[in-house]
């Protein structure tokens, strides 16, 4: 339905373009007066005026339609049935009414639900007709205005350029809106979470047991939301990942930059880049299919007890993923060291290795540290590998052989499946997301500082 509407609008805009251009052309060819703008701009003006307001209207309508209809239907439900219902119960009734409206009737629902479903359906069909009529009317008005404006004095080009400039500004401001949306949604849901769980308990609590009893009689923990063990697990896995990635990434970058022939370099670099292009879900499957069993059997051979989802497997595989990241940052940092420093060192008789160790490396250190910090931020935010290969239970341990959980794992497991927004379990995920966002943002800003600082050093 909506697809057809957009198609019709596109068609209308195209017709407006062609009509206006033809009229302007004819008028210009008539030669009564010199036109300010070319015929094409008169056409483009019609195109924008016909299409743009209508499309914006449709988008706005679609965003609001669902919630408006829902609230009308809910508001019209009989008072007697609604008295004393909490939000969870209400959304259940809403879902039931919608499923009845779609024709999936289970059992014999109460008559007022059937009535509501009917009202829901009729509201929807009214809305769809209203949308069509209103949109086409807006498009028609736009077209009419554009048609009536064709005249030698009308500055169509200026108008068209002004509109496109505003469109471009709107597109670039979108980035701000996205950041704002992230921050707003995370903070809003987190505040609702901190209403139920005090913020001090979240920040300093040493227990993480988000499984809350759904029914009164169910046997389950009371629910503890202390993020310390979760964050500790994240740090353990990140450390393992860095222990793998930093030496390998550094050494391969040094080798490729200083020792390798250009042929080896041109072959090796793309292969390293492939490691960065592999989707993380593939790494996750690799971790559970190959790496974790291998570590377990190695541990068994050495007589060490290794947990099935040890932090070593998830962290190690994450390290492999980060190798190209570290190596490309190191590569950039080494290449940015001025040629004069390298040549000077070699001219004084230092070997290539000594030049790297004593001249290039110290000079490149800020850039490398920046890269490592970005890698840390990546590792903390990485989700699929740990969701698949790390554990679910938060334990206060720093032993990488144990099973640990991470912030991202908890976010995903808390939100997977059906979730209601008034449950502390669901809201806890947003609080974790907020912490994750803050930590990664801080790391990124510090890393950028480092990188910028060392750039200034040689400019």
């Amino acid at each position, binding site marked *: 339905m909506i697809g057809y509407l957009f198609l019709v609008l596109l068609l209308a805009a195209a017709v407006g373009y062609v009509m206006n251009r033809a009229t302007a052309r004819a008028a210009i060819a008539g030669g009564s007066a010199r036109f300010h703008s070319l015929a094409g701009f008169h056409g483009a003006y019609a195109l924008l005026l016909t299409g743009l307001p209508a499309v914006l209207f449709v988008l706005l309508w679609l*965003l609001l339609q*669902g*919630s408006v209809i*829902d609230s009308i239907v809910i508001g019209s439900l009989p008072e007697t049935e609604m008295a004393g219902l909490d939000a969870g119960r209400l959304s259940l009734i809403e879902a039931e009414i919608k499923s009845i409206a779609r024709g999936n009737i289970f059992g014999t629902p109460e008559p007022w639900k059937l009535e509501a479903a009917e009202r829901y359906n009729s509201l929807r069909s009214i809305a769809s007709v209203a949308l069509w009529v209103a949109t086409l009317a807006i498009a028609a008005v736009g077209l009419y205005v554009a048609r009536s404006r064709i005249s030698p004095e009308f500055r169509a080009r200026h108008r*068209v350029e002004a509109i496109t*400039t505003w*469109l*471009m*500004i709107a*597109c*670039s*401001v979108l*980035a*701000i809106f*996205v*950041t704002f*949306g992230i921050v707003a*949604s*995370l903070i*809003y849901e987190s505040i609702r979470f901190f209403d139920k769980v005090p913020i001090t308990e979240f920040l300093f609590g040493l227990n993480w047991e988000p499984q809350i009893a759904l029914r009164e009689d169910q046997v389950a923990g009371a629910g503890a939301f202390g993020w310390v063990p979760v964050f500790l697990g994240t740090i353990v896995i990140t450390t393992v990942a860095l222990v793998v990635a930093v030496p*390998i990434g*550094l*050494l*391969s970058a040094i*080798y*490729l930059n200083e*020792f390798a022939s250009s042929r080896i370099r041109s072959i090796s670099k793309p*292969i390293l880049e492939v490691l960065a*292009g592999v*989707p993380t*879900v*593939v790494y*996750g499957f*690799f971790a*559970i299919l*190959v790496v974790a069993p291998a570590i377990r059997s190695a541990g068994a051979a050495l007589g060490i007890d290794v947990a099935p989802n040890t932090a070593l497997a998830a962290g190690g595989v994450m390290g*492999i993923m980060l190798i*190209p990241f570290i190596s490309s940052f190191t590569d950039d940092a080494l290449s940015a060291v001025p040629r004069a420093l390298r040549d000077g060192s070699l001219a004084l008789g230092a*070997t290539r*290795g*000594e030049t*790297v160790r004593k001249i290039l490396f110290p000079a490149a250190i800020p850039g490398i540290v920046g890269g490592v910090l970005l890698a840390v*931020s990546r590792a*903390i*935010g*990485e*989700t*699929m590998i740990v*969701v*698949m290969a790390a554990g679910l239970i938060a334990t206060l341990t720093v032993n990488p052989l144990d099973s640990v959980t991470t912030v*991202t794992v908890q976010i*995903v497991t808390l*939100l*997977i499946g059906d979730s209601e927004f008034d449950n502390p379990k669901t809201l806890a*995920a*947003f609080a974790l*997301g907020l912490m*994750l966002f803050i930590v*990664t*943002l801080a790391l990124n800003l510090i890393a950028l500082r480092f990188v910028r600082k060392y750039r200034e050093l040689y400019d």
Partner: protein
Amino acid sequence: MTDLASSAPQRIDWSDAELRKRLARRHSGDKWLKFAGIAALAISFSMLGILVLSLVSNGFAAFTQTHLKLEFEISADRVSAEDPAAGNYRAIVRDAMLGLFPEVTSRADQREIANIPSNGAQYILRDRVVADPALIGTRVTLSVPVSDPYDQLAKGLVDRKTPEANRRVNDQEIAWFDRLEEKGLVSKPLNTGLITNADSRFPELAGLRGAILGSFYALLVCFLISFPVGIAAAIYLEEFAPKNKLTDTVEININNLAAVPSVVFGLLALAVFIGWFGLPRSAPLVGGMTLALMTLPTIIIATRAAVKAVPPSIREAALGIGASKHQVVFGHVLPLAMPGILTGTIIGLAQALGETAPLLLIGMNAFITQAPGGILDSSTALPTQIFIWADSPERGFVSRTSAAICVLLVFLILMNALAVVLRKRFERRW
């Protein structure tokens, strides 16, 4: 300086043993560094090799599917001509199997034998009869998939030497299956179902059709949003924007967005798109919108680089003959930068194709046995399907998962190859 000039140049005794030793030590330090570098590279490459090898060797098994050729008797009392869809096809499949083993009489054994063909065999038969009701009352020969344990057995993935208790098929069942093989009823054709079927609880029937379509729709939405918006934003920032606070903020924001963890975008989508706007869960529309937000920085950065690479002489020439700033940008700079923009866009879309975490949060990991018909239908995507299958306990899903990963990697390789070709063919050096 005079001191240096007056003293005679010191002669270096190259044959001095101490000097040679020192030199050797310094050079060996070099060698070690070089060796460590080679070892580091070798580790990375071997990891990549193990990754690809383990996936291909595991996934290889899922590219064929064991089929059983059976003769079904579609009798009129099992299937009525008025309503062929409601017939008792389960019994027909059972009879066809038992007909091959007339000597088996115990009910338990008969049940086991009826379980050799896949549970989906009855539906394949049903669809066939519904499509051609004239078959009722005749005998039909069809190739149907066998169930997962026998599929593993036929492919040699079940070690017959392991103790019977540790095997998924017992000796009796192996003997039955061997007899079917002797009769020449077992075949292993290419597993087209992997691409043409939707998801299923039974590994032998599960396919990627729904996931591929879901990914396609999500990427389509992602492209339709991020491509125009990304280009407009990049052109504005590169060509028009005055240097002020607002544009600085925009630039910082874009760079930060590129570094925000993907799971946070999932939280945003869940709270805003689904929670506040009430868009449907699990829909490729929401998935595509989320992916578009993540792809946007990639496209903006690529577009800015491509626009920057167009030499100023082009702009000046166009301005010189009276074009307006907009005419210069949209008539000359943008077309010349297009190859670079497209390359960046394809690479961004390839990244979006492999993205999993945000799609999990908006519910694109549901179990859906029907391919989506549009962007508002519930569906999965390729990476989330891989995640679902990796979580499934059935043995057959291990090879299916690897095969699904191979399919995903093929798509990624194709997209990246397209990007490379575009760059090689159309990139202009000024």
